């Protein structure tokens, strides 16, 4: 075991997989010599060479097209999209090609690609360095969508993703790269060394894609969330003293609805939290499934606490980023509702 932040954990996952399998390579803008603008691929160029830590032209659509061809030819590309805000030029290749290839070819062709991309706000990045576009990908069948909330999961999930034959979009909440962030932006930043899940095995291990984690148990309300917001929700739960069960779904598709169901069956109340904009966010899908499957257990309407339906504003970062207070208020409303 070693202390790692998210960046180191992700780096370790890639390093291990590249070491095992020469078909694994990392590619993207500035990922080679420089090691990525967030340093996630640091050292891989030196260790595996320019051919396997491959700098690429600035054309996300081109990077994806090329990655698919590589995947079809037996490689296992790990593509970095520098910011998830810049994934849109690649959407056609992802949605029309990558996601559908196995199906449309009757199972003959597939491309085992992982798309890693930093997402989310909280870093003063304004509207083009703060987006959380995960919901788009959950609507395109054929893709798995993952978002870890800590170094342990990050490494284990990334290894699972690299070793999977399905295409996977792997979102990395950049605000927690260096430490868990509970939304208290006016306090000193914490490091991952202060968090139990900052303890990470140095060797190979997997965290299963499609399984949620119960972060902490509780009896009165279920809080379903992922990424960044796990820590903000945890902060809210701890500060409020509410007995909430906190679920980190970790994987959006396939969603581990059973774990959520079991919890809501127990608590009868549920709130869903994410940073992405409200309308048609993945919260709507979670809410829908909980409503469909736990209707008779529900004692109060399920609430969503999310980013607003506006572009992410530079000046109002902390009014946009869902706060502990908004989460606590939602839990309280849910508890009071009868």
């Amino acid at each position: 075991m070693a202390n790692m932040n998210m960046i180191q954990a992700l780096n370790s996952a890639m390093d291990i997989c590249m070491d095992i399998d020469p078909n694994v390579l990392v590619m993207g803008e500035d990922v080679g010599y420089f090691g990525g603008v967030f340093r996630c691929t640091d050292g891989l160029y030196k260790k595996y060479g320019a051919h396997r830590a491959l700098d690429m032209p600035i054309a996300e659509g081109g990077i994806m097209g090329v990655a698919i061809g590589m995947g079809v030819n037996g490689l296992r590309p790990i593509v970095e999209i520098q910011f998830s805000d810049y994934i849109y030029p690649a959407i056609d290749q992802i949605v029309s090609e990558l996601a559908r290839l196995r199906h449309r070819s009757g199972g003959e062709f597939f491309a085992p690609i992982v798309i890693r991309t930093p997402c989310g706000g909280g870093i003063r990045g304004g509207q083009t360095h703060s987006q959380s576009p995960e919901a788009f990908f959950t609507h395109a069948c054929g893709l798995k969508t993952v978002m870890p909330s800590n170094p342990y999961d990050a490494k284990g999930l990334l290894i699972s993703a690299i070793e999977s034959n399905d295409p996977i979009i792997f979102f990395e909440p950049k605000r927690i790269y260096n430490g868990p962030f509970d939304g208290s932006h006016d306090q000193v930043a914490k490091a991952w060394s202060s968090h139990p899940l900052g303890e990470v095995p140095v060797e190979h291990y997997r965290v299963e894609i499609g399984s949620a984690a119960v972060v902490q148990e509780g009896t009165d309300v279920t809080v379903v969330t992922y990424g960044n917001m796990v820590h903000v929700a945890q902060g809210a739960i701890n500060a409020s003293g509410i007995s909430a069960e906190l679920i980190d779904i970790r994987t959006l598709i396939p969603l581990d609805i059973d774990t959520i169901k079991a919890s809501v069956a127990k608590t009868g109340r549920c709130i869903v939290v994410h940073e992405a904009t409200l309308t048609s966010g993945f919260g709507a899908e979670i809410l829908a499934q909980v409503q469909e499957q736990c209707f008779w257990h529900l004692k109060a309407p399920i609430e969503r606490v999310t980013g607003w339906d506006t572009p992410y504003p530079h000046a109002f970062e902390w009014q946009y980023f869902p706060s502990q207070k908004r989460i606590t208020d939602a839990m309280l409303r849910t508890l009071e509702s009868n």
Partner: protein
Amino acid sequence: MTSKQPEQSVKSYHSKLFVPQASSRPDTTPDFSHIAIPPPTDSHKPEVLTGALDMQDLAYGIVRVLGDDHLCAGPWVPEISADTLRLGLKHMLHVRAFDDRMFKMQRQGKLSFYMKSTGEEAISVAQGMALRTTDMMFPSYRQQGLLFVREHSIVDLMCQCLSNAKDNIKGRQMPIFYSSKQHNFFSLSGNLATQYSQAVGWGMAAAYKGEDRIAVSWVGDGTTAAADVYHALVFGSTYKAPVILNVVNNQWAISTPQSFASTGTTFAARGIGLNVPGIRVDGNDFLAVYAVTQWAAERARQGGGPTFIEHFTYRTEGHSTSDNPDAYRGKNEAKYWPLGDPINRLKQHLIALGEWSEAQHLALTEELSQSITAHWQEALAFGSLDNGPHWPVSSMFEDVFEEIPPHLLAQSQKIGD
């Protein structure tokens, strides 16, 4: 709910915008006389590792081998036996017979859709024959000829078109969206151009693995405008990927003339500024296509990177079974096309060589037409779109992922509802 009309804010404009023209429209007479057709002896054949700029003339000329006298001439004459030529002719005739039959079957309601490659058969057949079977092909939808060259089962092609129980892609795609891993023929996409940059990635992987296989891809003239074509050129050139990038310039993109994509110059020229040599070739000249493809394949295998080949040809028929070309182009425009018909030209060449005759041609045509009929009956026996049998309905939920995840399993269990 009717509200009053808003007032007109401005008068009309005197537009200065340039809008390209068509080669003909239903009310005009086709005229291709502005196209200069050079004799085969006019072009030169560079060394395979020549720099893109140093062979620029080939992007603006037309590489030809078969002259008006139906004989070979010029520097591009390939080494090719009469047997091979006869095989090429047979494949082309076979494709045409197949296309004609399938088109008719669509018109009779047996297929939901069909697309012919009439007039363009030389391109896929000659290219397919000039490649190695281990080379990977990323075609568009008008390169069915490649599958004939690679000896794909005709019945199986028909079964795909019928979406029946023997369709290897399980009824999932419209007719003609073939996929054949066994034949190194990539799954066709309905989305234009996407396969172009994928071919480059495939080639990069081959180079990364130290292999000497190459990738080949095709787009139409209209499709050259798509982003993926640029991506293919940028990435292909940056990493010197072993690929051949073909543009089949058949003059039309549904109803839109090539002038909306060519920017008033040749397509072949487009690669040069990205350090990719461009060659424009007479796409109806089997031998010229063959020779240019061999050259480009050799360049790719030697590490010279991509070649951008424009096949100058003509889409003799409608875009697909969904359109009527008489609604948007001059009647019989194909008759005015100055480069003739590829099948007829190869036939005349073989006859001129004394290697073929009208009688043989007739017999072969007849034989192929009969075999197509037999294959069609055979294919129908495996089912049809309307009447089945198909794959089991539950198969729809397979192959979305490698393994069916719980939510899809649940849905597949509901489908009986």
